[in-house]
């Protein structure tokens, strides 16, 4: 039987490092993906993810369990991302990592996908990444949390420290900008389906 986050947190607070490492194993990829999509750099996203777990481990005695463990991790990671963006004072770079996507996408799609489809998917991914780069940090973060991590409006509002209505506005504006960007690139859904 798989232990829940809450059970593992309780054991970790009793000094069981292995339990905390199970939590790390469970959440390292979502946290890395969050950092990567917010700040857009592989190496820095790794650093942010690693630092997130270190801080969580150190702050574990102060974790009272009011929020979910994952929400707590997301909050730490987002604060680190925000620090990174402020410290670097630069727009996130969301270029596709060199030479990664095609092979991975091919593996994901299986042998039935033609090379043309593969290229189109790769191109689409690159265009989406470039579109995300255009968004202000708050809109981008709201979209990332909603689309890739499935958080509710309320959870995003709690993480971003803003009203529910602001989250909805950020999502609507962000999606609208992305929509225009995709249309300007001539990559409509119908074209991709061809």
């Amino acid at each position, binding site marked *: 039987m798989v232990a829940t986050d809450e059970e593992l947190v309780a054991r970790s607070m009793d000094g069981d*490092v292995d339990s*905390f*490492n199970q939590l*790390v194993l469970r959440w*390292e*990829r979502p946290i*890395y*993906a969050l950092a*990567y*999509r917010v700040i857009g750099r*592989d190496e820095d*996203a*790794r650093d942010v*993810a*690693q630092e997130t*777990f*270190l801080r969580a*481990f150190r702050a574990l005695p102060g974790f009272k369990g009011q929020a979910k463990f994952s929400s707590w991790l997301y909050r730490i990671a987002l604060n680190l991302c925000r620090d990174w963006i402020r410290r670097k004072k630069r727009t996130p770079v969301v270029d596709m*990592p*060199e*030479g*990664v*996507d*095609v*092979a*991975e*996408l*091919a593996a*994901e799609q299986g042998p039935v996908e033609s*090379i*043309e489809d*593969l*290229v189109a*998917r*790769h191109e*689409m*991914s690159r265009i*989406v*990444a470039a579109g*995300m780069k255009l968004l202000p940090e708050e809109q981008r973060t709201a*979209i990332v949390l*909603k*689309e890739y991590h499935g958080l*509710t*409006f309320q959870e995003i509002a709690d993480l971003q420290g803003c009203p529910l*209505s602001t989250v*909805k*506005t950020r*999502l*609507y504006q962000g*999606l*609208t900008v*992305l*929509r225009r960007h*995709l249309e300007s690139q001539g*990559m*409509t*859904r119908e074209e*991709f389906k061809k």
Partner: protein
Amino acid sequence: MFRCDDKQTLISYVYGEIDHDTRQAVDAHLASCHACAAEVTALGDVRSDIGLWVPPDVELDFTIVKKSQLPASNVLRPARWWTAVPAWAQAAAAILVLAAGAGIANLRVTSTAEGFSVSTGWMTPAVSAPAVGEANGPRVAGTSDELKVQLAALEQKLREEIRSTREQDTRAAARTTVDEATIRRVQQLIAASEQRNERELAMRFVEFTRDMNMQRRADLQNIGRGMVNYEDQLQRQRQTINNLIRVSATPQP
């Protein structure tokens, strides 16, 4: 009642976080408002496209390690160092302990024609004269000073042996740790390099295919344009020939 400018309700509808009554109101509005219906469809398509952006599949393997769990590469003494001491040295140590005990007790072992006799310094000798012992057989135990010198030499030799054994073990342990770390690192580098090469090859293959396709399309377009030009020329030639035939057929005055 849903209005077209109520974007917050619209986004709630798109994400499905909406109560039943409001959903019905939006559904009713979308049935009659093509602009809002198109916007909902477009936002849904954008959401699908967003799903195509995947982060790189990197190896993370973060692990929290307690200080006490760190590898003991800096511990110089093997845990069971005494097991590395040679058997002869262990026997010598046992003799040393025995001899030291005998020295403290001032033990004397004498061999006479009547047999061996053992006595301590605090006991009255069973056989009276040392001269008898010297005359009748070899004396096994030396004097106290000789014994002390021998013991000191033996102890010194034993200490040196143990020290050299420890140093050898420490060096061997350090070398083994370094070697393992190096091998692990080299293996990681080789694996990373192979992965990089595979990805690069895949990328180049995709680029090559894309270039080929573009070239093929360009060639087809050129061929198409050439065919059109050729047909135009053919048409003009036909017209010229027809004109010539017509002119030649006309009776000259």
